[in-house]
């Protein structure tokens, strides 16, 4: 599914964000990416978002070298990945319904299908009846649930979550991790960057630990 092959990323002279990083994630796996600040987790995610490209090495996602994706193909690549961020990255000037519906709108999905699919998703995250509420009025946990619902609304084969529990209390953090686990059990490949040792330990999943841009599994 994902294969980092001798990847280097050098941001400034002599500062290697990634230093000959190699690892792979199989289809259907649940993997934690851990490590101290500056270890290279964000760089890995930026490369996987295709926000950036490696200076050396290859990154294969579903057997395609994403560094060589044409700029016009990048949006289509991103639609196959569900992104979840620590700070939710919701659009605060539109309703919960509109936030979750956005990926479907991008793909010109029929309005009736959007209506049904989004309402089902809202029901699953327990926000039924609050479809028209702006994200301002939600708790941190609810916001992250909306972000997760948006990330999976297109049924992507791969979910990347960057510190998804970083702004949440223990109960909400655990709920989010449970939802990610359920998605994984349904066949979705999940990669989570996390500092939270307790959650990483309790989940009992494979861990890729990064230190100074290298993988230490």
């Amino acid at each position: 599914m994902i294969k980092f092959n001798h990847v280097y990323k050098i941001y400034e002279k002599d500062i290697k964000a990634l230093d000959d990083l190699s690892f792979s994630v199989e289809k259907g796996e649940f993997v934690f990416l851990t490590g101290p600040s500056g270890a290279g987790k964000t760089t890995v995610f930026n490369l996987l978002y295709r926000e950036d490209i490696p200076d050396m090495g290859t990154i294969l996602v579903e057997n395609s070298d994403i560094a060589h994706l044409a700029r016009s193909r990048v949006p289509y690549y991103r639609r196959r990945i569900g992104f979840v961020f620590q700070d939710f990255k919701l659009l605060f000037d539109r309703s919960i319904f509109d936030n979750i519906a956005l990926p479907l709108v991008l793909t010109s999905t029929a309005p009736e299908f959007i209506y049904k699919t989004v309402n089902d998703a809202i029901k699953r995250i327990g926000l039924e009846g609050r479809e028209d509420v702006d994200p301002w009025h939600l708790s941190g946990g609810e916001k992250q649930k909306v972000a997760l619902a948006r990330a999976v609304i297109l049924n992507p084969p791969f979910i990347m979550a960057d510190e998804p529990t970083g702004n949440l209390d223990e109960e909400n953090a655990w709920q989010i991790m449970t939802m990610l686990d359920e998605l994984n059990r349904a066949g979705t490949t999940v990669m989570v960057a996390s500092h939270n040792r307790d959650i990483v330990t309790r989940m009992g999943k494979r861990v890729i630990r990064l230190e100074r841009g290298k993988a230490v599994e």
Partner: protein
Amino acid sequence: MRWLKEVFLNFKRTDFMSLVSVGTIALAILALGGYYLINQTLNYIITKVEQKVEVVVFLHDGFDPQKAQQMVSDAKQIDGVDDVMFVSKADAYNNFIKDPDMHDIMKSFDGNPLPDSITVKLRDYTKETLAGVVKFFNAREGVEDIQYGGAEIENLIKIVSAIKLIVGIAGIIFAVAALLVVSNIIRLTVYARRQDIYIFRMIGASESFIRVPFIIEGIIHGFLGGFIGWGLLYTIVNVLINEIRKQTGMDFSGFYLFTPDYFNVRFMLSSIAAGSGLGLFGALFSQGRFFK
């Protein structure tokens, strides 16, 4: 529909800046429309004045009428000449005394003081045509004097050209200013929504999905600005026409530029099109930094 929703959200977020953008386009359209009206009016006046330009060639007293007729026939061959007429001294005298003011003056002379003359009407008023006619008659026997309003016309054209230049420069300055203001306001809108743009990108929005609302926003600013600019110009022109009518009794409402068919329909549509064009180009110019 989706794009209109995005445009509406942009308007909501940047209501004051949107008003500034619409207002600037309205002023630019007012200036450009004013320039167009002034330019057309001046061209109309020049054409009318030019059409009245005649070259009058006075002949020596007693010049052979047959030679004069020959001169008339030859002059008709000159490029740009519309008509050439021989006016005998008797015809000239009869014309003069028809004018009550001239009647007494002419009667004070012993006999007819007027010479035979040839009147040349020009088809196209140009310096070259005029010079050709003057050169032709200067080289002929029997010509005493050649008169034409050339110097006055040249002065008028110079003044009109200067006015057109000044108004034109003002129009261009307003248009460029409008373009910059619209461009910068849309750039600010883009800046204000940079986080949203980032989110759109992350969830797989195409560039057109992100950019088109900003372009539509520019066009809507331009559409509204163009309409308001036309409305201002319409009001100003009507106030001026009424004032001139009151002060001088002259009625310009029938002038072709101010007829309803032209000023209310064609001019309005052109103003809206020009405003929308300004908005569109302003939006396209703004699509730089934040979209890289």
